[in-house]
Each structure stands twice: as structure tokens, then as C-alpha cells.
């Protein structure tokens, strides 16, 4: 054997041993889905849940023979929570890796940058994180789909519930970027409609870990409810500091969303009695068969229950597959048309549907509350489900308000 050919076969064999899953997935002619997400930084835990949700969907689909006889392959990239990096990774996924579809983008401002690239390349993009702009003009393109809830829907559902049940004098602390600002706007609007007031609203830079300087004036203002729009790892830092300054005793704390990875990291004592909205919680497996399927597949693979944002990714990968099967083509335009022509689907929590004008997915959400440690059954049982809010297009802005005639 010549040295050169020995090296070539040797390396190939070693690679085969090291990455059998990748090789198998690439064997045949896999359909590639690009998936950028911020695996490093303050949203790292959420990004991990999303990757795992996507992997569960991919393996579930491939185990049943793939789509159109071809396997799915999801390629993950770290966008570092930076719009420029998200754009670059997306461009590489499309141009170098030949991905026909992009799913992902976990921050409102980064998904905009991803969306710019998919629009330019004419590729289907399913966003799996909250944003008001992603499904509205001028950002939404003809191939931009939005699987997640958005601040308007969450805000109208959650803020109304908080105002009616917890109190109407609010203070809002929000991360000073797209998602935080959108939430601040919607929450303020809803509480005023409900006859309440916003005593003050303080922005802080996303990814910040020091909130103490915000707290004295909140204490002094004596709101009934403190709305903490503090996503990702910021949430734990904020809630810890708020508790250490005694705020939890002085007022109710509520949030737009709870996220399972941060409930786990922060622990039940931090989240007990804190209200929020959520798109999915694994306890729904008791009442929804599709949830049971997803939760058991995820548990089998990762030995823990799935989170909420991972479910978006799971559903979006299934939607790409459903679209390909319907269109009988691996082509963004055909898949988009097929999904809009067959808008109803149900992958993990009951019926959802795509609205034709803005390609926004409508779905149920739930109001939840951090459970007391003494009532937890098992180490993941962090939430009491307080109320279901049924899917409704009325919770979102209308097609006209979003710029679609």
C-alpha cells in the first residue's frame, strides 16, 4: 500500500469511526436543513434545547424512512447571539453546505439578520423564536415562516391575565433589544387598556448580570407587579438580585415567559410564585397525545424532559418535512406554497395553523406559575399550569396592521 493511499483510507476510516452518524446521514443524498443558533452566551441553554428538539425531529423522521426516500440532515452553527455572525453562518450554510431550508435563530435581532440572508438567497426560513417584526412588513419575505409565538400574542394573553389577577400598578424592567422593547410596548399598552398604570419602565443591556442599581427605585415606587422582561441567563441574575433586595416580599413578580432550562438552573426557590406565559410544558403529555410522543422521544434520547423553545424547533423541522412531502419537491418555493395550501398541523401540542397573509403560526399557549418546592413531583416539575389560552388570530395584529393588504 502506498503511503498516500494509506493516509487517505486511514483518515477516512478514522473519520468513519469518529463520526458515524454524520457519515450515515450524508450517505445517499441527504436533504440539508441549516440551523443557526446562539449556543454560546446568555441564551446557550435555550439554544441547546432547540438543537436537541431538532435532532429528535430529524431522527424520528429518518427512522420512518426520511422524506421522499431521502434522509434529513440538520446542520447546526453557533451565531454567538450576534446579527453579523448569524448572517455569515446562514450565508455559509446556504452557499457552502447547500442547505435548501433554514430553521433557527433564537434572538429577535439575530433572526432578522438570518432572514435577510434567506430572503436574498430565496430560501425557506422558519423562525423558531419570538419576534413581532419577523412576520410583518417590511421584514417578512414570501418564504419567511414564523413558528414561535410573538410578543404581541404573548403580551396580550399574559399581560391581560396579570392585570386582571395580580394587580394593575406595574413596573417593567426590560432587555434593551428587539424582543425586550416589543414586550415593553405590548405590556404597557395592555395594562393601560385594562385601566392600570405603568409606574416606570427601565431598560438594561441584554446579557447584563448586574441589576442592583435598578432595584432601589423600584422598591421606592411600590408597584403591585414587577414585570421582568429579562431573557435567558439574565433572568436568573435578575430574579436572584430582586429576591436578595427583598422585592419578592414587597410585590408580585411576573414575566412574559418561563423557560425550562432556566427554571432548572435557577431552581424552584427562585421561581416559586412567579407567573409567566409558556408555549409548551412537558406536563401536557398527560392530556395531549402528540405531547406524549414528543416528550417520550426526547426523554429517551436525552434522559430529561424537553423544554419549551426546543419544541418550536421540533415542530419546525417536522413542518419542513411535511412541506417537502406535500410538494414532492426539495424546493423552497414549492414547500412554502404547499404549507400555505395545507395550513393545519399538529406536531406536539394540539392544532396549529399558518395564516396565509403573514405565514405566522397560530397555537395555544398557557399561563403558568413557579411551583413551590414542596409540591414538586420529581426534579423537573417546576410549573403549575394555571390556564390555557386557546389559539386565536385575534391575539395578533391583523394582516392589515402588519402591512399585508
Amino acid at each position, binding site marked *: 500500500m502506498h503511503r498516500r493511499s494509506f493516509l487517505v483510507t486511514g483518515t477516512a476510516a478514522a473519520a468513519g469511526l469518529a463520526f458515524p452518524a454524520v457519515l450515515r446521514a450524508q450517505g445517499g443524498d441527504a436533504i440539508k436543513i441549516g440551523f443557526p443558533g446562539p449556543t454560546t452566551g446568555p441564551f446557550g441553554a435555550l439554544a441547546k434545547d432547540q438543537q436537541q428538539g431538532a435532532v429528535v425531529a430529524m431522527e424520528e423522521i429518518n427512522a420512518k424512512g426520511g422524506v421522499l426516500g431521502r434522509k434529513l440532515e440538520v446542520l447546526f452553527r453557533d451565531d454567538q447571539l450576534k446579527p453579523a455572525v448569524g448572517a455569515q453562518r446562514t450565508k455559509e450554510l446556504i452557499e457552502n453546505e447547500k442547505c435548501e431550508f433554514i430553521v433557527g435563530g433564537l434572538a429577535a435581532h439575530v433572526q432578522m439578520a438570518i432572514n435577510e440572508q434567506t430572503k436574498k438567497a430565496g430560501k425557506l426560513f422558519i423562525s423558531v423564536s419570538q419576534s413581532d417584526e419577523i412576520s410583518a412588513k417590511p421584514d417578512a419575505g414570501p418564504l419567511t415562516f414564523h413558528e414561535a409565538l410573538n410578543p404581541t400574542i404573548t403580551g396580550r394573553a399574559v399581560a391581560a391575565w396579570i392585570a386582571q389577577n395580580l394587580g394593575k400598578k406595574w413596573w417593567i424592567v426590560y432587555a434593551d433589544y428587539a424582543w425586550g422593547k416589543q414586550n415593553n410596548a405590548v405590556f404597557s399598552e395592555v395594562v393601560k387598556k385594562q385601566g392600570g398604570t405603568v409606574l416606570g419602565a427601565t431598560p438594561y443591556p441584554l*446579557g447584563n448580570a448586574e441589576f*442592583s442599581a435598578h432595584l432601589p427605585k423600584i*422598591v421606592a415606587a411600590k408597584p403591585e407587579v414587577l414585570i421582568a422582561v429579562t431573557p435567558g441567563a439574565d433572568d436568573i441574575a435578575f430574579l436572584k438580585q430582586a429576591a436578595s433586595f427583598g422585592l419578592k416580599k414587597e410585590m408580585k413578580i411576573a414575566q412574559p415567559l418561563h423557560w425550562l432550562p432556566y427554571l432548572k438552573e435557577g431552581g424552584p426557590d427562585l421561581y416559586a410564585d412567579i407567573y409567566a406565559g409558556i408555549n409548551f410544558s412537558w406536563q401536557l403529555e398527560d392530556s395531549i397525545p402528540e405531547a406524549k410522543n414528543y416528550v417520550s422521544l426526547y426523554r429517551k434520547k436525552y434522559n430529561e424532559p424537553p423544554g419549551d423553545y426546543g419544541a418550536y424547533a421540533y415542530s419546525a423541522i417536522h413542518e419542513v418535512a411535511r412541506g417537502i412531502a406535500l410538494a414532492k419537491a426539495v424546493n423552497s418555493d414549492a414547500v412554502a406554497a404547499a404549507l400555505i395550501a395545507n395550513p393545519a398541523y399538529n406536531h406536539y401540542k394540539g392544532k396549529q395553523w399558518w395564516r396565509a397573509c403573514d405565514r405566522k403560526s397560530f397555537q395555544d399557549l398557557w399561563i403558568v406559575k413557579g411551583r413551590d418546592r414542596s409540591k414538586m413531583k420529581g426534579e423537573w416539575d417546576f410549573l403549575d399550569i394555571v390556564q390555557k389560552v386557546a389559539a386565536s388570530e385575534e391575539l395578533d395584529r391583523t394582516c392589515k396592521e402588519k402591512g399585508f393588504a
Partner: protein
Amino acid sequence: MADLTLATLAAQVFTGLVLGMILVLLAIGLSLIFGLMTVVNFAHGSLYMLGAYFGFFLVAYTKSFWLALVVAPMLVGVFGLLVERFLVRRLYGRSIDDPLLLTFGLSLVLVEAVRLVWGKIGLTLDPPPALAGVVNLGFTYFPLYRLFVIGVTVVVLVALLLFLEKTNVGLIIRAGSRDPVMVRALGFDLGRVWLLVFGIGTALAGLAGILAGPMRGVYAEMGVTIVIESFVVVVVGGMGSLPGAIVAGLVIGQVVSLTTLFAPKFAEIMVFIVMALVLLVRPSGLFGEAGLME
């Protein structure tokens, strides 16, 4: 702010004091190292982060925050000794950029290494039960742990100043930062002094890290922004000046805290505005001597 009371303002100043203390601990270490060796240690933020991680695992294994509070900074200090002995030392006598690039590279390596070893997701470190409570200061309720941070910092600063002012080693360190050639001519081994100072400076970063952990959480990127704020403190105080680092650290802490009270959107940028203003009036910083950077 219509409802701004004296009590709120006092609470705000107290909050700023804690922010300042952490900055002082970091800036003192930076300033010591710069003053003696003209090394701009960009890895300081990563050493702060290492202090918090070491602290987390020491608490997890020994169940004692107090032990961790002592041992974690020492571990970071030992790591600092190794960095000085095997990396930074090779670059003395070269331009100021070379150690800067080295330590900048090291900071990136450390962040990636921590992500590889301990994962990309942050950890939560709780204050010890004895310090978990809230204290009534009369004008506000304040977390006991934050008062403790103020206390520890004051004790460490006093000890450090006594060491520098009252001991022979301290005398050599101070002399070495003024005129290294003369100190060498008098027969002192400056290599060992540099090693020691690098160790002390990095240990202080580690201490700041474990102190900050229970307040801000423990995560790989925790040093990235604070190292920039610490450099601002060093520059405002005057490169190499210890009183400058202390005064500027406390000032910047108040700037952040009070800007957050009145105009939260500008809290980040205000730090740099203050730096620019100080440099316009005093180009070498509040307590700095001209010519150190040349």
C-alpha cells in the same frame, strides 16, 4: 423622577459602592501588574471568571464557601504565577503590544477552554446561608452578602497597602516600579518580584470573581465586559496608580449606579463619557504620571 427621595438616593449610592468594590479589586490587580511590568493584562477578565468557576467547584466539593473564598483566589494566583513564568516573562523588554496580544489571546483560550470543560451553560452559586439574609439599613433593605463584599474588599485593600508600604518586599516592589535598573543594580532579583506581583494581581482577580459569583452567576463570558470597565477604571485612575485605581473604581461604580437611576439607557455609555472627560482634563488620569506608556 418625581418621587426621588433621599432614602432612594442613599440606597442607590450604596448599590454603586458594591459595583465599585468589584471594579476596585480588578483594577488594583491590573494596575499593580502594569505599574511594575508595563504589561497590559487582557486576560484579567478570564482570571476573574476562573476565580468564580474554581469557587463554584470548591463550594460543590467541600460544601464550604469560606474555604472556597480563600482557596479559589490562591488557585487563580498560582495559575497567574505559571502564566508569568512561562508566557509573559519571555516578552519583557519588547514593545508594550506583545504581552497585550499574548494575554488577549490567552483570554480567548481560557473562555473556550472553560466552555469545553464545564459546558457553555452558566452555573448558579449561592451565597453561604449565613450571608443570605437582608439587612435593614434604615433607609433601605440591603442584601447582607453585598455588605460582606464591601467588608472583604476593604480588608483586602488595607492588607495590600500595609504590605506595600510597611514591608521590605513592598518597598522593593514600589522601587521596582519607579526605577527597575537601579533596583537591579542594588542586587535585587526583580524576576522573583515580578512573579510575586503577577501572582498577587491575578489572585485579586480571582477573589473578585468568587465574590461576584453569588451576585451575578458563573458563566464563561462573565469577564468579557467587566475587563473593559476595569481598564476604564485603571485609565481614569492613572495607569499604575493604586490610589487612582481605588478612587476611580468607586467613582465609576457611582457613575453606573446613578446613571441607572436617572437615565438607564445611558448607564453603559456614561462610563466611557466620564473616561473621555477625565482624559481631556488630565491625559494621564487622575493620579497618573506622564510617560509610563512610552
